């Protein structure tokens, strides 16, 4: 099916299903990510209680790339994100099928070591989700859980990570204070620091800026940009301007009869300057979604 010119009328309810856009090799001006697939999804489908929510998503996400997942609400972006660290396991009635690989690891295999997978793949949610403990305890808890007991090393890792997220100067004198007393933006950065404490390879960010005021949102956004290269970052965002500013690649999802599908996937530049699908064109011009 020719996706580019098949339908003059754009409607999310049209019966035809779009195919999967072939992956465009990386060729952006900014040589930030290596063209090595880090995460590979093939025919990935997710259903809740037998009702499909996302169907046949195939895409390859490059190592060190910042990939934005965009699209209207309910098109399965967050479900896709949560399948990568198998948080979908925690949702009652959720079934993931197809194949999903992180390097050579078959993420969906029942043999996979979930704690290790989640250590390798960190995640940040829309709202900061700090535990009701001190800043120090929040940061140290995951590392302790993974077996690091040495206080000096813990302290050192904590300082380094807090500096990485630009919080060290703000919180170094109140590490024993409750983490949830920090401002929203600080909390979100602390969540990021907590995920980074485990030295993950991949970071999943589920609308990390949407609950923040513009100033804090800007700070968190800059921070996310600074993580590029070191980590493979997937960010779900409703803010197209943000996706345009920060993403190397963009995956555009759309909901067809309540079932999410990947419509187009490519470099941010090609996606915003020269979208291949009418839905993408309509969505980024603000006519749809």
């Amino acid at each position, binding site marked *: 099916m020719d996706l580019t010119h098949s339908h003059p009328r754009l409607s999310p309810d049209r019966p035809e299903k779009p195919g999967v856009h072939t992956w465009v090799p990386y060729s952006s001006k900014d040589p930030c990510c290596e063209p090595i697939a880090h995460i590979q999804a093939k025919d990935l489908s997710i259903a809740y209680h037998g009702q499909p929510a996302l169907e046949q998503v195939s895409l390859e996400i490059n190592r060190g790339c910042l990939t934005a997942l965009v699209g209207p609400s309910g098109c399965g972006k967050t479900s896709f994100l949560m399948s990568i*660290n198998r*948080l979908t396991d*925690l949702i*009652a*009635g959720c079934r993931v099928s197809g194949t999903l690989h992180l390097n050579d690891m078959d993420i969906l295999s029942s043999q996979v070591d*979930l*704690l*290790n*997978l*989640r*250590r390798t793949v*960190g*995640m940040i*949610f829309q*709202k900061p*989700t700090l*535990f*009701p*403990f001190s800043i120090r305890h929040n940061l140290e*808890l*995951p590392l302790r*859980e*993974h077996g690091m007991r040495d206080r000096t090393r813990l302290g050192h890792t904590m300082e380094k990570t807090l500096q990485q997220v630009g919080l060290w100067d703000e919180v170094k004198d109140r590490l024993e204070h*409750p983490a*949830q*007393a920090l401002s929203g933006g600080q909390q979100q950065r602390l*969540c990021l620091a*907590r*995920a980074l404490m*485990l030295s993950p390879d991949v970071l999943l960010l589920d609308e990390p800026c949407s609950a923040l005021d513009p100033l804090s949102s800007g700070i968190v956004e800059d921070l996310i940009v600074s993580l590029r290269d070191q980590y493979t970052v997937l960010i779900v965002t409703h803010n197209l301007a943000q996706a345009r500013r920060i993403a190397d690649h963009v995956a555009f999802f759309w909901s067809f009869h309540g079932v999410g599908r990947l419509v187009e996937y490519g470099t941010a530049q090609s996606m915003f300057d020269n979208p291949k699908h009418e839905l993408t064109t309509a969505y980024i011009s603000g006519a749809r979604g």
Partner: protein
Amino acid sequence: MRSQHNHIQELLGPLLMWGVAAMVTLPFLWITGDLIVHGVSHLSFEFLLSPPHDAGRQGGIRPILVSTFLIIGVCITVAMPIGVGTALYLSEYTRNDKVLGRLIRSSLDILAGVPSSVFGLFGNVLFCQVLGLGFSILSGGLTLACMMLPIMIRTIEEGFRSLVQDQRLSAAALGLSKYTTIRVVLLPAAIPSIVVAGILGLGRALAETAALVFTSGYVDRMPESLLDSGRSLSVHIYDLSMNVAGGNAHAYATALVLLSVLLSMNVLASRMVTRWTLHIHTLA
């Protein structure tokens, strides 16, 4: 016409609400008032601190108070860990396991409606006879624990279920094990519901008579160990008012003591919950 109709409706609504509230509150006030009027004149430190004489017509209730606290102590010590554990199992481990979860839940709901005398007979057979504990404070406490558990478990389970999924997801996303998640995230957050469940259970235990007559007996001597028979406040009230001619005055006074214990436990627990929530919020 229409506005008059609305006006009547607006008046009728609150009136109905007040009526219902009064129907619930009035019996409580009536009972309390009656107890105070008839009981307060017999209440004294001596009444609380001396043993009963002449089948309870004279003397006080010291051994009965001690037995009551021991029975409740046994009951809560046994019921709390089992209650929290089962509630955790139901809310965290049986989410997708429909058959087992449903089986446990419906068993609990049926048990919650079983009459206390049936629990008493069950306790008599199991604890007093089969396990050989005889009529004792231990048998009574254990029987009460069985009786309290259904309602306690369901209350605590609701507490766990109402916790936001965010915290569970975020703990899992950090690679925390289920055990750690329960220990550091879920249990602290569910403390208020655990306390409420404890209070509900205690209230039921304090008020219980039938189950205790069959299990802890009604010996009114000072108990020397948990294996001694002991009379609880509620059994004492029942005995004084039904079996002892001229025991009414002390029955009133004992009921007043029981009510005060119940009230102070309630106040204490709600204070604890408020303080805990404040503590969480200052942390928050």
